[in-house]
Protein backbone atom coordinates (compact mmCIF):
# COMPACT_ATOMS: atom_id res chain seq x y z
CA UNK A 1 0.00 0.00 0.00
CA UNK A 2 1.24 3.42 -0.90
CA UNK A 3 0.27 5.26 2.27
CA UNK A 4 0.50 2.49 4.88
CA UNK A 5 0.02 3.99 8.33
CA UNK A 6 0.27 7.60 7.18
CA UNK A 7 -1.86 10.31 8.79
CA UNK A 8 -3.36 12.60 6.18
CA UNK A 9 -5.48 15.75 6.46
CA UNK A 10 -7.77 16.63 3.57
CA UNK A 11 -9.36 20.07 3.52
CA UNK A 12 -12.52 20.25 1.47
CA UNK A 13 -12.68 16.53 2.16
CA UNK A 14 -16.47 16.40 2.41
CA UNK A 15 -17.09 16.10 -1.30
CA UNK A 16 -15.75 15.93 -4.83
CA UNK A 17 -12.01 15.60 -5.33
CA UNK A 18 -11.42 15.93 -1.58
CA UNK A 19 -13.70 13.03 -0.76
CA UNK A 20 -12.27 10.90 -3.59
CA UNK A 21 -8.78 11.60 -2.27
CA UNK A 22 -9.82 10.66 1.26
CA UNK A 23 -11.28 7.36 0.12
CA UNK A 24 -8.35 6.47 -2.13
CA UNK A 25 -5.79 7.43 0.52
CA UNK A 26 -7.65 5.25 3.04
CA UNK A 27 -7.65 2.44 0.53
CA UNK A 28 -3.88 2.84 0.39
CA UNK A 29 -3.60 2.51 4.16
CA UNK A 30 -3.87 6.07 5.47
CA UNK A 31 -5.88 7.40 8.39
CA UNK A 32 -7.75 10.51 7.37
CA UNK A 33 -8.73 13.80 8.98
CA UNK A 34 -11.60 15.20 6.94
CA UNK A 35 -11.52 18.97 7.34
CA UNK A 36 -14.55 20.78 5.99
CA UNK A 37 -17.17 23.38 6.80
CA UNK A 38 -19.93 20.92 5.92
CA UNK A 39 -20.17 18.62 8.95
CA UNK A 40 -22.83 16.30 7.55
CA UNK A 41 -21.03 15.61 4.28
CA UNK A 42 -17.69 15.33 6.09
CA UNK A 43 -19.20 12.66 8.36
CA UNK A 44 -20.29 10.77 5.27
CA UNK A 45 -16.72 10.88 3.90
CA UNK A 46 -15.47 9.68 7.29
CA UNK A 47 -17.81 6.68 7.07
CA UNK A 48 -16.38 5.84 3.64
CA UNK A 49 -12.88 5.96 5.14
CA UNK A 50 -13.89 3.70 8.02
CA UNK A 51 -15.44 1.32 5.53
CA UNK A 52 -11.90 0.87 4.20
CA UNK A 53 -10.83 -0.19 7.67
CA UNK A 54 -8.99 3.04 8.47
CA UNK A 55 -9.47 5.62 11.18
CA UNK A 56 -11.26 8.84 10.35
CA UNK A 57 -11.55 12.16 12.12
CA UNK A 58 -13.87 15.00 11.17
CA UNK A 59 -12.71 18.57 11.78
CA UNK A 60 -15.54 21.00 11.21
CA UNK A 61 -13.80 24.21 10.29
CA UNK A 62 -13.46 27.31 8.16
CA UNK A 63 -10.10 26.96 6.40
CA UNK A 64 -9.77 30.72 6.06
CA UNK A 65 -9.52 31.17 9.83
CA UNK A 66 -6.10 30.78 11.42
CA UNK A 67 -7.55 29.51 14.71
CA UNK A 68 -9.47 26.83 12.84
CA UNK A 69 -6.35 25.80 10.92
CA UNK A 70 -4.42 25.45 14.17
CA UNK A 71 -7.24 23.46 15.74
CA UNK A 72 -7.26 21.23 12.66
CA UNK A 73 -3.59 20.39 13.16
CA UNK A 74 -4.02 19.97 16.92
CA UNK A 75 -6.98 17.62 16.56
CA UNK A 76 -5.19 15.55 13.94
CA UNK A 77 -2.14 15.17 16.20
CA UNK A 78 -4.36 14.38 19.18
CA UNK A 79 -6.22 11.70 17.25
CA UNK A 80 -3.40 10.19 15.18
CA UNK A 81 -0.19 11.18 16.98
CA UNK A 82 1.29 13.03 14.02
CA UNK A 83 0.68 14.40 10.51
CA UNK A 84 2.35 12.94 7.41
CA UNK A 85 0.61 14.90 4.72
CA UNK A 86 -2.12 17.34 3.80
CA UNK A 87 -4.22 17.77 0.69
CA UNK A 88 -5.75 21.24 0.36
CA UNK A 89 -8.76 21.51 -1.87
CA UNK A 90 -11.32 23.60 0.02
CA UNK A 91 -12.68 26.31 -2.29
CA UNK A 92 -15.83 28.30 -2.83
CA UNK A 93 -16.92 29.61 -6.21
CA UNK A 94 -18.16 33.09 -6.86
CA UNK A 95 -18.26 33.45 -10.61
CA UNK A 96 -18.85 36.95 -11.94
CA UNK A 97 -17.66 39.28 -14.63
CA UNK A 98 -14.70 41.32 -13.44
CA UNK A 99 -16.52 44.58 -14.01
CA UNK A 100 -19.23 43.42 -11.62
CA UNK A 101 -17.21 41.42 -9.10
CA UNK A 102 -17.57 42.85 -5.60
CA UNK A 103 -14.83 43.17 -3.03
CA UNK A 104 -16.65 40.72 -0.77
CA UNK A 105 -16.83 38.10 -3.51
CA UNK A 106 -13.17 38.56 -4.36
CA UNK A 107 -12.19 38.29 -0.70
CA UNK A 108 -14.26 35.19 -0.07
CA UNK A 109 -12.69 33.20 -2.91
CA UNK A 110 -9.17 34.36 -2.09
CA UNK A 111 -9.66 33.82 1.66
CA UNK A 112 -10.79 30.22 1.29
CA UNK A 113 -9.06 29.25 -1.94
CA UNK A 114 -5.66 30.82 -1.37
CA UNK A 115 -5.19 32.07 2.19
CA UNK A 116 -6.88 28.93 3.48
CA UNK A 117 -4.31 26.80 1.65
CA UNK A 118 -1.54 28.79 3.30
CA UNK A 119 -3.00 28.63 6.80
CA UNK A 120 -3.78 24.92 6.70
CA UNK A 121 -0.47 23.96 5.07
CA UNK A 122 1.39 26.12 7.56
CA UNK A 123 -0.36 24.63 10.60
CA UNK A 124 0.02 21.04 9.42
CA UNK A 125 3.46 21.78 8.01
CA UNK A 126 4.87 22.94 11.33
CA UNK A 127 4.15 19.46 12.69
CA UNK A 128 5.77 17.86 9.64
CA UNK A 129 8.83 20.13 9.87
CA UNK A 130 9.39 19.00 13.45
CA UNK A 131 9.52 15.40 12.25
CA UNK A 132 11.54 16.30 9.18
CA UNK A 133 9.19 14.62 6.73
CA UNK A 134 5.88 15.20 5.06
CA UNK A 135 4.06 16.03 1.87
CA UNK A 136 1.80 18.95 1.00
CA UNK A 137 -0.51 18.69 -2.00
CA UNK A 138 -2.46 21.66 -3.34
CA UNK A 139 -5.35 21.08 -5.68
CA UNK A 140 -5.20 23.94 -8.17
CA UNK A 141 -6.85 23.85 -11.60
CA UNK A 142 -6.07 24.30 -15.28
CA UNK A 143 -7.80 27.61 -14.51
CA UNK A 144 -4.60 28.46 -12.64
CA UNK A 145 -2.57 28.43 -15.84
CA UNK A 146 -5.29 29.52 -18.28
CA UNK A 147 -7.47 32.50 -17.39
CA UNK A 148 -10.97 31.21 -16.63
CA UNK A 149 -13.15 33.99 -17.91
CA UNK A 150 -16.25 34.74 -15.89
CA UNK A 151 -14.88 32.89 -12.87
CA UNK A 152 -14.21 35.93 -10.71
CA UNK A 153 -11.22 35.45 -8.41
CA UNK A 154 -11.05 31.71 -9.09
CA UNK A 155 -8.20 31.73 -11.62
CA UNK A 156 -6.18 34.10 -9.46
CA UNK A 157 -6.59 31.88 -6.41
CA UNK A 158 -5.65 28.82 -8.46
CA UNK A 159 -2.58 30.50 -9.96
CA UNK A 160 -1.64 31.47 -6.42
CA UNK A 161 -1.95 27.82 -5.35
CA UNK A 162 0.76 26.88 -7.84
CA UNK A 163 3.15 29.53 -6.61
CA UNK A 164 2.36 28.81 -2.97
CA UNK A 165 3.08 25.13 -3.58
CA UNK A 166 6.36 26.05 -5.24
CA UNK A 167 7.22 28.36 -2.37
CA UNK A 168 6.54 25.75 0.32
CA UNK A 169 8.53 23.27 -1.71
CA UNK A 170 11.48 25.61 -2.00
CA UNK A 171 11.45 26.75 1.62
CA UNK A 172 10.75 23.38 3.21
CA UNK A 173 12.12 20.82 0.75
CA UNK A 174 15.50 20.88 2.45
CA UNK A 175 13.83 20.03 5.73
CA UNK A 176 12.07 16.95 4.40
CA UNK A 177 8.68 18.45 3.63
CA UNK A 178 7.77 18.32 -0.05
CA UNK A 179 5.03 20.45 -1.63
CA UNK A 180 3.41 20.03 -5.04
CA UNK A 181 0.35 21.12 -6.98
CA UNK A 182 -2.21 19.12 -8.94
CA UNK A 183 -4.12 20.85 -11.74
CA UNK A 184 -7.38 19.09 -12.62
CA UNK A 185 -9.22 19.87 -15.81
CA UNK A 186 -12.96 19.40 -16.31
CA UNK A 187 -14.23 17.21 -13.47
CA UNK A 188 -17.84 16.69 -12.43
CA UNK A 189 -18.08 17.28 -8.69
CA UNK A 190 -20.74 18.85 -6.46
CA UNK A 191 -18.99 22.16 -7.26
CA UNK A 192 -19.53 21.72 -10.98
CA UNK A 193 -22.50 19.37 -11.02
CA UNK A 194 -25.08 22.01 -11.95
CA UNK A 195 -23.11 22.61 -15.11
CA UNK A 196 -22.56 18.99 -16.05
CA UNK A 197 -26.23 18.16 -15.47
CA UNK A 198 -26.90 19.96 -18.74
CA UNK A 199 -26.25 17.23 -21.33
CA UNK A 200 -25.24 19.77 -23.94
CA UNK A 201 -22.59 21.23 -21.66
CA UNK A 202 -21.41 17.81 -20.56
CA UNK A 203 -21.00 16.72 -24.17
CA UNK A 204 -19.47 20.05 -25.19
CA UNK A 205 -16.87 19.99 -22.43
CA UNK A 206 -15.94 16.41 -23.20
CA UNK A 207 -15.48 17.33 -26.84
CA UNK A 208 -12.99 20.12 -26.18
CA UNK A 209 -10.65 17.86 -24.21
CA UNK A 210 -8.08 16.02 -26.36
CA UNK A 211 -8.97 12.73 -24.67
CA UNK A 212 -12.62 13.30 -25.55
CA UNK A 213 -14.02 13.02 -22.05
CA UNK A 214 -14.10 14.85 -18.75
CA UNK A 215 -12.17 13.53 -15.77
CA UNK A 216 -13.45 11.80 -12.66
CA UNK A 217 -12.62 12.82 -9.07
CA UNK A 218 -10.97 9.43 -8.57
CA UNK A 219 -8.50 10.22 -11.35
CA UNK A 220 -7.45 13.43 -9.61
CA UNK A 221 -7.22 11.55 -6.31
CA UNK A 222 -4.69 9.18 -7.88
CA UNK A 223 -2.36 12.09 -8.51
CA UNK A 224 -2.84 13.40 -4.97
CA UNK A 225 -2.08 10.00 -3.46
CA UNK A 226 1.02 9.61 -5.61
CA UNK A 227 2.34 12.99 -4.47
CA UNK A 228 1.54 12.17 -0.83
CA UNK A 229 3.38 8.87 -1.07
CA UNK A 230 7.06 8.02 -0.80
CA UNK A 231 6.99 7.02 -4.44
CA UNK A 232 7.14 10.77 -5.12
CA UNK A 233 10.14 11.17 -2.80
CA UNK A 234 12.05 13.36 -5.29
CA UNK A 235 9.04 15.27 -6.60
CA UNK A 236 9.00 18.75 -5.08
CA UNK A 237 7.71 22.19 -6.17
CA UNK A 238 6.18 20.46 -9.19
CA UNK A 239 2.86 20.98 -10.91
CA UNK A 240 1.03 18.00 -12.32
CA UNK A 241 -1.79 18.55 -14.77
CA UNK A 242 -4.49 15.87 -14.73
CA UNK A 243 -6.74 17.20 -17.45
CA UNK A 244 -6.77 14.87 -20.43
CA UNK A 245 -4.51 17.37 -22.21
CA UNK A 246 -6.96 20.25 -22.04
CA UNK A 247 -4.61 22.98 -20.83
CA UNK A 248 -2.38 22.51 -23.88
CA UNK A 249 -5.26 22.25 -26.34
CA UNK A 250 -5.53 25.89 -27.33
CA UNK A 251 -4.54 25.27 -30.94
CA UNK A 252 -7.21 22.60 -31.19
CA UNK A 253 -9.78 25.37 -30.98
CA UNK A 254 -8.40 27.24 -33.93
CA UNK A 255 -10.86 27.05 -36.79
CA UNK A 256 -9.68 26.40 -40.32
CA UNK A 257 -6.89 24.01 -41.21
CA UNK A 258 -6.01 24.31 -44.82
CA UNK A 259 -2.25 24.38 -44.74
CA UNK A 260 -0.67 23.31 -47.98
CA UNK A 261 -4.10 22.78 -49.44
CA UNK A 262 -4.60 19.81 -47.15
CA UNK A 263 -7.63 19.76 -44.95
CA UNK A 264 -6.50 19.02 -41.42
CA UNK A 265 -9.01 17.18 -39.35
CA UNK A 266 -8.36 15.82 -35.88
CA UNK A 267 -10.82 12.99 -36.40
CA UNK A 268 -8.69 11.81 -39.32
CA UNK A 269 -5.53 11.50 -37.29
Amino acid at each position, binding site marked *: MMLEGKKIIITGGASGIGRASAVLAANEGADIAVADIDRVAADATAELVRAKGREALVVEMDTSKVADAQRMADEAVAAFGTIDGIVCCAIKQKPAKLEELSEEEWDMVIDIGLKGYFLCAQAAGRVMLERGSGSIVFVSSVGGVQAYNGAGAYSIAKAGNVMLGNLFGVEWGGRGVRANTVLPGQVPTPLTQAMFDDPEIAAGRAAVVPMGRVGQPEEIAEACVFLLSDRASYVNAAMLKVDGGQAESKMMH*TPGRKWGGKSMDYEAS
Partner: protein
Amino acid sequence: MTQFENKVCIVTGGASGIGAKTAEMFVQRGGQVVIGDVNDEAGEGLAAAIGDKAVFFHLDVSDPASCEAAVDLAVARFGSVDGVVNSAIKMAPGPLKDLAHADWNLVLEIGLTGSFLMSQAAGRWMIDNGRKGSIVMLSSNGGRNPYGMSGAYSTTKAGLIMLAQHLAIEWAQYGIRANAVCPGHTETPLTAYLQDPEIKQARSDVTPLGRVGQPEDIANGILFLLSDEADYVTAATLDIDGGIAKSVMNHMPGRKWS
Protein backbone atom coordinates in the same frame (compact mmCIF):
# COMPACT_ATOMS: atom_id res chain seq x y z
CA MET B 1 18.91 60.35 -33.84
CA THR B 2 16.76 57.58 -35.20
CA GLN B 3 16.16 54.30 -33.42
CA PHE B 4 18.47 52.19 -35.57
CA GLU B 5 20.98 54.74 -36.81
CA ASN B 6 24.22 52.96 -37.78
CA LYS B 7 22.61 49.61 -37.00
CA VAL B 8 22.69 46.67 -39.38
CA CYS B 9 20.31 43.75 -39.23
CA ILE B 10 20.11 40.47 -41.09
CA VAL B 11 16.56 39.22 -41.55
CA THR B 12 16.16 35.60 -42.64
CA GLY B 13 12.97 34.79 -44.44
CA GLY B 14 13.06 38.50 -45.13
CA ALA B 15 11.38 38.43 -48.53
CA SER B 16 7.83 38.05 -47.28
CA GLY B 17 5.45 38.25 -44.38
CA ILE B 18 6.72 39.19 -40.94
CA GLY B 19 10.34 39.15 -42.10
CA ALA B 20 9.66 41.57 -44.96
CA LYS B 21 7.70 43.95 -42.75
CA THR B 22 10.47 43.86 -40.15
CA ALA B 23 13.12 44.65 -42.78
CA GLU B 24 11.05 47.52 -44.14
CA MET B 25 10.37 49.05 -40.72
CA PHE B 26 13.98 48.59 -39.59
CA VAL B 27 15.10 50.79 -42.47
CA GLN B 28 12.24 53.25 -41.89
CA ARG B 29 13.59 53.71 -38.39
CA GLY B 30 17.08 54.47 -39.62
CA GLY B 31 18.81 51.11 -39.97
CA GLN B 32 20.29 49.08 -42.78
CA VAL B 33 19.20 45.60 -43.59
CA VAL B 34 20.32 42.43 -45.33
CA ILE B 35 17.27 40.62 -46.61
CA GLY B 36 18.08 36.92 -46.65
CA ASP B 37 15.75 34.52 -48.41
CA VAL B 38 15.65 31.71 -50.95
CA ASN B 39 12.99 33.59 -52.89
CA ASP B 40 15.20 35.77 -55.11
CA GLU B 41 12.44 37.51 -57.00
CA ALA B 42 10.51 38.67 -53.95
CA GLY B 43 13.70 39.49 -52.04
CA GLU B 44 15.25 41.55 -54.80
CA GLY B 45 11.97 43.32 -55.38
CA LEU B 46 11.65 44.22 -51.71
CA ALA B 47 15.27 45.42 -51.47
CA ALA B 48 14.78 47.61 -54.55
CA ALA B 49 11.59 49.05 -53.11
CA ILE B 50 13.24 49.86 -49.79
CA GLY B 51 16.26 51.49 -51.47
CA ASP B 52 19.98 51.62 -50.85
CA LYS B 53 19.66 50.87 -47.14
CA ALA B 54 18.62 47.34 -48.07
CA VAL B 55 20.39 44.57 -49.90
CA PHE B 56 19.08 41.16 -50.88
CA PHE B 57 21.14 38.04 -50.35
CA HIS B 58 20.22 34.56 -51.56
CA LEU B 59 20.41 32.90 -48.18
CA ASP B 60 19.99 29.22 -47.45
CA VAL B 61 19.94 29.19 -43.67
CA SER B 62 20.51 25.44 -43.61
CA ASP B 63 23.99 26.00 -45.09
CA PRO B 64 26.62 27.40 -42.68
CA ALA B 65 28.65 28.83 -45.55
CA SER B 66 25.61 30.73 -46.79
CA CYS B 67 25.04 32.19 -43.31
CA GLU B 68 28.69 33.25 -43.10
CA ALA B 69 28.42 34.86 -46.52
CA ALA B 70 25.39 36.85 -45.34
CA VAL B 71 27.47 38.19 -42.46
CA ASP B 72 30.33 39.00 -44.82
CA LEU B 73 27.97 40.90 -47.08
CA ALA B 74 26.47 42.88 -44.19
CA VAL B 75 29.94 43.89 -43.01
CA ALA B 76 31.22 44.68 -46.51
CA ARG B 77 28.18 46.71 -47.46
CA PHE B 78 27.11 48.36 -44.21
CA GLY B 79 30.05 47.90 -41.84
CA SER B 80 28.68 45.64 -39.14
CA VAL B 81 26.06 43.18 -37.90
CA ASP B 82 24.09 44.38 -34.90
CA GLY B 83 20.95 42.32 -35.16
CA VAL B 84 19.59 39.07 -36.51
CA VAL B 85 15.95 38.21 -37.03
CA ASN B 86 15.40 34.51 -37.66
CA SER B 87 12.09 34.18 -39.40
CA ALA B 88 12.86 31.67 -42.16
CA ILE B 89 10.60 28.63 -41.96
CA LYS B 90 9.04 26.06 -44.23
CA MET B 91 5.76 24.31 -43.58
CA ALA B 92 5.20 20.60 -44.04
CA PRO B 93 1.97 19.93 -42.21
CA GLY B 94 0.56 16.49 -41.67
CA PRO B 95 -0.66 14.13 -38.96
CA LEU B 96 2.23 12.68 -36.97
CA LYS B 97 1.13 9.16 -37.84
CA ASP B 98 1.80 9.76 -41.50
CA LEU B 99 4.51 12.43 -41.36
CA ALA B 100 7.41 11.62 -43.68
CA HIS B 101 10.95 11.66 -42.33
CA ALA B 102 11.85 14.18 -45.02
CA ASP B 103 9.02 16.54 -44.00
CA TRP B 104 10.10 16.37 -40.37
CA ASN B 105 13.72 17.08 -41.31
CA LEU B 106 12.85 19.93 -43.66
CA VAL B 107 10.98 21.94 -41.04
CA LEU B 108 13.59 21.37 -38.33
CA GLU B 109 16.46 22.08 -40.70
CA ILE B 110 15.13 25.42 -41.93
CA GLY B 111 13.30 26.58 -38.82
CA LEU B 112 15.56 25.42 -36.00
CA THR B 113 18.97 24.43 -37.35
CA GLY B 114 18.90 27.39 -39.75
CA SER B 115 18.20 29.80 -36.89
CA PHE B 116 21.11 28.32 -34.98
CA LEU B 117 23.51 28.55 -37.93
CA MET B 118 22.56 32.13 -38.80
CA SER B 119 22.79 33.22 -35.15
CA GLN B 120 26.11 31.44 -34.75
CA ALA B 121 27.62 33.07 -37.84
CA ALA B 122 26.45 36.54 -36.79
CA GLY B 123 27.33 35.96 -33.14
CA ARG B 124 30.87 34.90 -33.97
CA TRP B 125 31.37 38.15 -35.85
CA MET B 126 29.91 40.18 -32.98
CA ILE B 127 32.06 38.40 -30.41
CA ASP B 128 35.24 38.60 -32.49
CA ASN B 129 34.69 42.28 -33.16
CA GLY B 130 33.56 43.26 -29.69
CA ARG B 131 30.13 44.38 -30.85
CA LYS B 132 26.97 44.16 -28.84
CA GLY B 133 24.02 42.65 -30.62
CA SER B 134 20.46 41.40 -30.46
CA ILE B 135 19.09 38.15 -31.84
CA VAL B 136 15.37 37.54 -32.26
CA MET B 137 13.77 34.16 -32.91
CA LEU B 138 10.39 33.95 -34.60
CA SER B 139 8.70 31.31 -32.50
CA SER B 140 4.92 31.01 -32.35
CA ASN B 141 1.98 30.29 -30.10
CA GLY B 142 2.53 26.88 -31.59
CA GLY B 143 5.82 26.76 -29.72
CA ARG B 144 4.01 26.79 -26.40
CA ASN B 145 0.84 24.88 -27.28
CA PRO B 146 1.04 21.93 -29.64
CA TYR B 147 -0.38 22.81 -33.04
CA GLY B 148 -2.06 19.60 -34.08
CA MET B 149 -1.43 18.45 -37.68
CA SER B 150 1.40 20.91 -38.15
CA GLY B 151 4.07 18.22 -38.44
CA ALA B 152 7.39 19.35 -36.93
CA TYR B 153 6.26 22.98 -36.72
CA SER B 154 5.37 23.12 -33.01
CA THR B 155 8.47 21.17 -32.04
CA THR B 156 10.61 23.56 -34.09
CA LYS B 157 8.97 26.62 -32.59
CA ALA B 158 9.38 25.29 -29.05
CA GLY B 159 13.03 24.66 -29.83
CA LEU B 160 13.45 28.27 -30.91
CA ILE B 161 12.35 29.52 -27.49
CA MET B 162 14.99 27.37 -25.84
CA LEU B 163 17.61 28.31 -28.45
CA ALA B 164 17.04 32.00 -27.71
CA GLN B 165 17.40 31.36 -23.99
CA HIS B 166 20.48 29.24 -24.51
CA LEU B 167 22.19 31.84 -26.71
CA ALA B 168 21.18 34.50 -24.21
CA ILE B 169 22.87 32.87 -21.25
CA GLU B 170 26.00 31.89 -23.18
CA TRP B 171 26.48 35.24 -24.89
CA ALA B 172 25.25 37.71 -22.28
CA GLN B 173 28.91 38.13 -21.29
CA TYR B 174 29.56 39.56 -24.75
CA GLY B 175 26.64 41.97 -24.63
CA ILE B 176 24.62 39.90 -27.07
CA ARG B 177 20.97 39.53 -26.18
CA ALA B 178 18.64 36.85 -27.55
CA ASN B 179 14.87 36.66 -27.27
CA ALA B 180 11.88 34.98 -28.88
CA VAL B 181 8.56 36.36 -30.06
CA CYS B 182 5.45 34.20 -30.27
CA PRO B 183 2.97 35.53 -32.83
CA GLY B 184 -0.57 34.27 -32.81
CA HIS B 185 -2.64 34.05 -35.99
CA THR B 186 -1.03 36.51 -38.35
CA GLU B 187 -1.91 37.33 -41.91
CA THR B 188 1.11 36.50 -44.10
CA PRO B 189 1.76 34.56 -47.32
CA LEU B 190 2.58 31.55 -45.14
CA THR B 191 -0.92 31.63 -43.72
CA ALA B 192 -2.75 31.96 -47.01
CA TYR B 193 -5.73 30.16 -45.46
CA LEU B 194 -6.52 33.45 -43.72
CA GLN B 195 -7.59 34.73 -47.13
CA ASP B 196 -10.64 32.54 -46.68
CA PRO B 197 -13.05 35.04 -45.09
CA GLU B 198 -14.76 32.33 -43.08
CA ILE B 199 -11.49 31.16 -41.54
CA LYS B 200 -10.30 34.70 -40.95
CA GLN B 201 -13.52 35.61 -39.21
CA ALA B 202 -13.51 32.45 -37.13
CA ARG B 203 -9.89 32.94 -36.09
CA SER B 204 -10.61 36.55 -35.24
CA ASP B 205 -13.52 35.42 -33.10
CA VAL B 206 -11.38 33.04 -31.04
CA THR B 207 -8.80 35.75 -30.35
CA PRO B 208 -9.55 37.84 -27.23
CA LEU B 209 -8.72 41.09 -29.04
CA GLY B 210 -11.13 40.08 -31.80
CA ARG B 211 -8.83 40.21 -34.81
CA VAL B 212 -5.96 38.30 -36.37
CA GLY B 213 -2.52 39.87 -36.28
CA GLN B 214 -0.83 41.83 -39.05
CA PRO B 215 2.89 41.63 -39.86
CA GLU B 216 3.45 45.12 -38.44
CA ASP B 217 2.03 44.00 -35.09
CA ILE B 218 4.76 41.41 -34.89
CA ALA B 219 7.46 43.63 -36.42
CA ASN B 220 6.82 46.24 -33.73
CA GLY B 221 7.70 43.69 -31.07
CA ILE B 222 10.72 42.42 -32.97
CA LEU B 223 12.04 45.96 -33.43
CA PHE B 224 11.63 46.65 -29.74
CA LEU B 225 13.76 43.61 -28.94
CA LEU B 226 16.36 44.68 -31.53
CA SER B 227 16.54 48.19 -30.15
CA ASP B 228 18.49 49.65 -27.26
CA GLU B 229 15.18 50.19 -25.48
CA ALA B 230 15.35 46.46 -24.77
CA ASP B 231 18.88 46.71 -23.44
CA TYR B 232 18.03 44.69 -20.31
CA VAL B 233 15.75 42.17 -22.04
CA THR B 234 17.35 38.82 -22.75
CA ALA B 235 16.24 35.18 -22.68
CA ALA B 236 12.66 36.48 -22.76
CA THR B 237 9.63 35.28 -24.70
CA LEU B 238 7.16 37.87 -25.93
CA ASP B 239 3.66 36.79 -26.96
CA ILE B 240 2.16 39.01 -29.67
CA ASP B 241 -1.09 37.23 -30.21
CA GLY B 242 -4.08 39.30 -29.11
CA GLY B 243 -4.22 37.19 -25.95
CA ILE B 244 -5.05 33.91 -27.63
CA ALA B 245 -2.33 31.89 -25.91
CA LYS B 246 -4.16 32.22 -22.61
CA SER B 247 -7.67 31.71 -23.98
CA VAL B 248 -8.19 27.95 -23.69
CA MET B 249 -10.93 28.45 -21.14
CA ASN B 250 -12.84 30.60 -23.64
CA HIS B 251 -13.53 27.38 -25.49
CA MET B 252 -15.23 25.64 -22.61
CA PRO B 253 -18.90 25.46 -23.41
CA GLY B 254 -21.45 26.25 -20.73
CA ARG B 255 -21.21 28.49 -17.69
CA LYS B 256 -23.88 27.61 -15.24
CA TRP B 257 -22.03 27.86 -11.98
CA SER B 258 -24.12 28.74 -8.93
